[in-house]
């Protein structure tokens, strides 16, 4: 069976800055694939190359068997692209915007009306379809932004951080909607720096940092990379730097970073049994005001692999 997307050896530099370095992955039909990485990791740059907005320095992109550089029209017709910003006409109504994209994607004239209504229902905006977009709430704009990419029934929907700046309720409705689309057989490429979203929506995940994929697999596979280690979140009051240095030397602790002014994150083998020694290590240097032991998750994997946190 032909893969929905295959990209290989994608690289892109801006001047001296390498934004994307040798990125490659494959998405099977109906698969939900996630790019998880912090801001500046190269997610948008990668996507821009996949949708034909940016010419890669090296590498190839094949969409549903069509090579993007050799046959861009065929490749682009299979992709629905949802940019990070609301790329729609603010002075037109929701319905008019959708109609515009139907025409742009060359939907047969007769099919336009029905398809617009379908998508309006899908994104839950049928009742606001005739209001101008600049009267929509942030969450509604996000939803119509996604709807505009669905009109031509793409094989692959590519979304660039679709929930940034969205209230929790709209976020839930967006994620629910995406899950329904995947259930109906659409392949998804989802990028985010929110671990929980990627975990929830995606079958397979690539962890990206500084322009490269550092690990790829199912959530289960990725978390296993940390081994049996737990993630320990400490809130300290006192000399945090010295405490951090001491903790790094503690047996079993594989990573220790500061996540906020008085917060420290540890990855430790059998972490939950290590708690007494953690507390005695910082005794006299800082007071432990809160402790949380978290089962291994993608946040722990990210820290394990990159020595960094997902959120800055």
């Amino acid at each position, binding site marked *: 069976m032909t893969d929905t997307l295959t990209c290989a050896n994608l690289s892109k530099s801006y001047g001296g800055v390498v934004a994307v370095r040798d990125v490659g992955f494959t998405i099977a039909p109906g698969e939900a694939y996630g790019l998880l990485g912090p801001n500046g990791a190269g997610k*948008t740059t990668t996507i*821009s190359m996949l*949708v*034909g*907005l*940016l010419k890669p320095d090296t590498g190839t992109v094949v969409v549903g068997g069509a090579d993007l550089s050799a046959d*861009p*029209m*065929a490749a*682009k*017709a299979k*992709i629905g*692209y949802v*940019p*990070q*910003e*609301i*790329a*729609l*006409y*603010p*002075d*037109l109504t929701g319905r*008019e915007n959708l109609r*515009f*994209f*139907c*025409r*742009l*994607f*060359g*939907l*047969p*004239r007769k099919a*336009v009306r029905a398809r617009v209504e379908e998508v309006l229902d899908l994104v839950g905006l049928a009742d606001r379809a005739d209001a*101008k977009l600049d009267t929509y709430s942030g969450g509604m704009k996000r939803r119509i932004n996604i709807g505009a990419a669905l009109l031509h029934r793409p094989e692959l929907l590519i979304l660039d951080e679709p929930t940034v700046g969205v209230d929790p309720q709209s976020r839930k409705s967006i994620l629910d909607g995406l899950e329904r689309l995947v259930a109906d057989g659409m392949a998804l490429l989802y990028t985010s720096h929110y671990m929980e979203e990627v975990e929830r929506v995606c079958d397979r995940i690539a962890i990206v940092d500084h322009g490269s994929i550092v690990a790829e697999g199912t959530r289960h596979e990725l978390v296993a990379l940390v081994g049996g280690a737990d993630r320990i979140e400490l809130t300290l009051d006192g000399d945090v730097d010295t405490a951090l240095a001491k903790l790094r030397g503690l047996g079993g602790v594989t990573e220790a970073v500061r996540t906020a002014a008085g917060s420290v994150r540890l990855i430790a083998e059998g972490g939950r049994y290590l708690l007494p020694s953690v507390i005695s290590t910082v005794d006299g240097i800082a007071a432990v005001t809160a402790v949380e032991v978290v089962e291994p998750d993608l946040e722990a994997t990210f820290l394990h692999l990159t020595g960094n946190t997902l959120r800055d």
Partner: protein
Amino acid sequence: MRPHPVLALVAANLRRHSRDRVGLFFIVVMPFVSIIFVGMALGGGAAAARLPVGVVAQESDPVAAAVLAELRAHPDLEIKTVGGEEELRAGVRGGALAAGVVIPPGSTRFELVMTQSSGSGMAARSAVDASVGRVAGVIEATRAATSAGASPAHAAELVRRAQAASADVEVVGSDTASATPRGFAYTAPANLLLFTFINSMAVAAALVESRRIGMLPRAFTAPVRRGAVLFGEALSRFLVAAAQAVLIMVVSSLLFGVSWGEPFGVAAVVGVFALVATGAAILMGSLVRSSAQPSAIGPPLGIVLGMLGGCLWPAEAAGPTLDTIGHLFPHAWGMDALLTLSRPGTGLGDVLLEVAVLGLMAAVLLSLSLVLFSRRTRTL
């Protein structure tokens, strides 16, 4: 049937412009406010008033006296006696007089002074012709006048000469022929160029917005050729420019009786000028950052170019230096061409140079701006 992506872009853009009430006001109302007010100030609004015709004549001369009487009797003319020929020509040139008649003493060879392109001058000429044509009456008067003093031979001679005179009335005025017409005949073409340009610059705001919100990059991810998207955007602006020009032409000819001239010539001039305006709009749309800038920069820029091009006051009032500078920009060429075409008997052939210069400007502006615009919209 599959809709064409260019049409999709044009339809969406025109719909957006039709929602912009301020923009519409500037397209539909402002040009006519400007045409009417400036036109009346320049003396074109008094269509019902009698045409002022200046006459240089010695009333003691019997022929002159008779012709004068005939002219004074004409319902459409208001005869003003003027001291000398210089004063007369100045009056005609300045627009205070629709035309002037010089009747040299003892001669029946009258001179009619007028500007060829002035509509009121044309009207005055036909009135004067009619008066002089009724020279039979004049001859009767002449005979009656001369029977007292002049010899019959002299009187007969006068009759012969007076009869020939109707054919001798000639339009003099190589020096005044190129003068700018007054009234609506001037303000209509001037404001056509002014507003076509200014409003094209103003609608570039929508272009900046499309660029800024990532609408165009998004359009490029559709299976549409890059050139089609750029063409759609350019065509949208061109249609606005052309619609503005056509609106001004139609309304001014219906309401103010402005005659624009030979249709092919006018279409060519207005068409290339709209292309120039389109190029300028896309250039603006590519260069500025915020969608508030085009409506802030466009009108002042359009007015300065209009000043230099003779769209705010006649070019001859500005002097030769400014006129030369003006011809570095499109408005002056457009003005030259439209004024030429407004004279009867002219056509596309008389404005080929202007059309060529404007066409060249349009080609340079459009290619430059489209390359720039394409670059600016390449990435997100």
